[in-house]
């Protein structure tokens, strides 16, 4: 079984490299190290920043102090000069006079520097020499005193970094400890008590691992009982072109206006602007072409006599193509495809193979008018012995209806309609046309081989 997170394992073609046990050990070590690093970072942030501030606000006591001198303290770290405000104060505790350079607790601890000199100057502007102010001293060690007790908000924000390491490390480590010594099968049943008879979902389903029926299939058809939902509507492409055109043209406009108002609009800028405007116009043109094509091709409606489908049965299928088109050819295909998803290095790849395809009809050279849509009805059969629809997290066998067309004025179009195919209820029956939802079947030999010709397949590969 595939681990949900893999650092130390690779897939080479159809096989995996290395031992899963060793990979598990190394991943455990990795997450353990991450957890320890997070703990160390957490402790460091707490002890250096958070705890001293909390300690000052909780334990330090107020006392009046006189300002004797003001200055900006400097230091050089990694070749860069850093600054901090420093105030020399004088205060009296239990009859003893103390004098020290201070500001906040970080200054007392030798830190508190920053690259921002103005911030240090601004902090000093609040004070005047010989002014009496309130300072806070440590009752356990009166030689420690501050004149600013505030919290550094970013110190708390800084805690998020080690905290994320701790959460990731602890999560990964506990996951690996939970997996340790357990078989793939025991892990697959999610650690449920072994006395249970694992009959819960998905086994409770009538047809486990068959994709669910699309919710929109409940919509009744006008010609046949079920109207199929369409996958990947063309509107997505239209919106994508529109977004690209708007973004590009607005960016160019903003850039041009900015340059114009800054009085830097010269001939060289005009030369630079011309290709940008051309790109913007091309994007707008592509959007309008896509929009026009979608409106011209119109809606494709596919209806079917029953749903879901059963292997070894025949069904009526109805197509209605609207629009205003001069069609070169229009065809409907019944297709069975396999799709596999796999990790390839750090990428998730997807490979699809079409294993079976049948052209249900093909019409050539005709015209579709606004008032007269193209309508046709035909028959489809899911052959006996074919695989049913199947979907697991990384593997899928799917059935689809493709409606494809070529027009004289617009680009080719393709509309996809998903089908759900179940195994036939009884293999010893002959396929019959099923009017409506009624199942009619009769005797036939087992494992009938489809009569199609074997030809080289088509493969497509992509990544996501």
């Amino acid at each position, binding site marked *: 079984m595939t681990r949900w997170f893999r650092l130390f394992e690779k897939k080479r073609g159809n096989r995996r490299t290395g031992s899963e046990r060793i990979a598990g050990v190394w991943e455990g070590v990795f997450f353990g190290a991450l957890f320890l690093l997070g703990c160390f970072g957490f402790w460091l942030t707490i002890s250096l920043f958070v705890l001293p501030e909390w300690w000052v606000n909780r334990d330090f006591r107020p006392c009046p102090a006189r300002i004797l001198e003001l200055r900006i303290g400097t230091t050089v770290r990694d070749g860069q000069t850093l600054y901090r405000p420093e105030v020399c104060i004088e205060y009296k505790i239990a009859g003893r006079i103390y004098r020290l350079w201070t500001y906040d607790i970080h200054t007392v601890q030798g830190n508190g520097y920053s690259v921002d000199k103005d911030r240090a100057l601004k902090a000093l502007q609040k004070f005047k020499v010989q002014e009496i102010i309130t300072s806070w001293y440590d009752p356990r060690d009166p030689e420690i005193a501050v004149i600013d007790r505030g919290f550094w908000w970013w110190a708390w924000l800084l805690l998020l970094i080690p905290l994320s390491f701790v959460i990731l490390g602890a999560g990964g480590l506990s996951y690996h400890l939970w997996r340790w010594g357990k078989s793939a099968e025991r892990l*697959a049943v999610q650690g449920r008590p072994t006395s249970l008879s694992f009959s819960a979902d998905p086994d409770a389903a009538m047809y486990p691992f068959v994709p669910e029926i699309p919710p929109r299939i409940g919509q009744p058809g006008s010609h046949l009982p079920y109207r199929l939902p369409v996958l990947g509507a063309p509107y997505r492409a239209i919106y994508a072109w529109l977004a690209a055109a708007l973004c590009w043209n607005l960016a160019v406009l903003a850039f041009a206006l900015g340059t114009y108002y800054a009085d830097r609009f010269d001939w060289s800028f005009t030369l630079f602007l011309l290709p940008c405007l051309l790109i913007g116009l091309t994007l707008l043109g592509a959007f309008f072409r896509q929009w026009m094509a979608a409106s011209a091709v119109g809606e494709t409606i596919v209806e079917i006599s029953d749903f879901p489908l059963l292997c070894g049965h025949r069904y009526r299928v109805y197509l209605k193509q609207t629009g205003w088109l001069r069609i070169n050819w229009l065809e409907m295909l019944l297709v069975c495809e396999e799709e596999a998803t796999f990790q390839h290095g750090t990428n998730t790849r997807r490979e699809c193979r079409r294993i079976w395809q049948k052209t249900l009809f093909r019409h050539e050279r005709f015209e579709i008018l606004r008032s007269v849509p193209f309508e046709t009805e035909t028959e489809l059969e899911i052959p006996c012995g074919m695989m049913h629809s199947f979907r697991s997290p990384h593997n899928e066998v799917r059935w689809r209806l493709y409606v494809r067309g070529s027009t004289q004025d617009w680009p080719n179009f393709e509309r996809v309609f998903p089908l759900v195919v179940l195994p036939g209820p009884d293999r010893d029956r002959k396929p019959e046309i099923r009017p409506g939802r009624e199942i009619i079947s009769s005797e036939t030999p087992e494992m009938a081989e489809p009569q199609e010709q074997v030809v080289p397949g088509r493969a497509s590969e992509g990544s996501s």
Partner: protein
Amino acid sequence: MIEPRILVHFDGKKTVYEPGEVLAGQVRIEPLPLEDIKAVELSILWYTDGKGDQDLHVRYFRRWSQDGDLPLDLREPLRFQTVLPQTPLSYDGLIVRIRWCVRVRLFRSRGREIVEEVPFRLGRVAPARVRLQ
């Protein structure tokens, strides 16, 4: 020391089952005595084997162990029985394959675990070939 052997027998000696049919059988482990066996796990499962990452689903699972709910007594054969589901059927595709099997794992006090896998077919789906017409 002799390695224990796992013997899996299906009732009726069938290798092809129909959806909804009962799959039953027994497991014997030889030779006895078997003091160093900590636990035995038996699963009836399907897994994918092909181009994609492997998916696995356990239909039936039992774990017999010295300290578990099901006590381990290897003097008697370990019986198993389940009703096979309607889907997924065994399938030999081009890049997706679905294999059903009974898998037995033997956990020992010392040494590596021993695994025995006995395949069977669920349903009669024909192997995939590329057919485009």
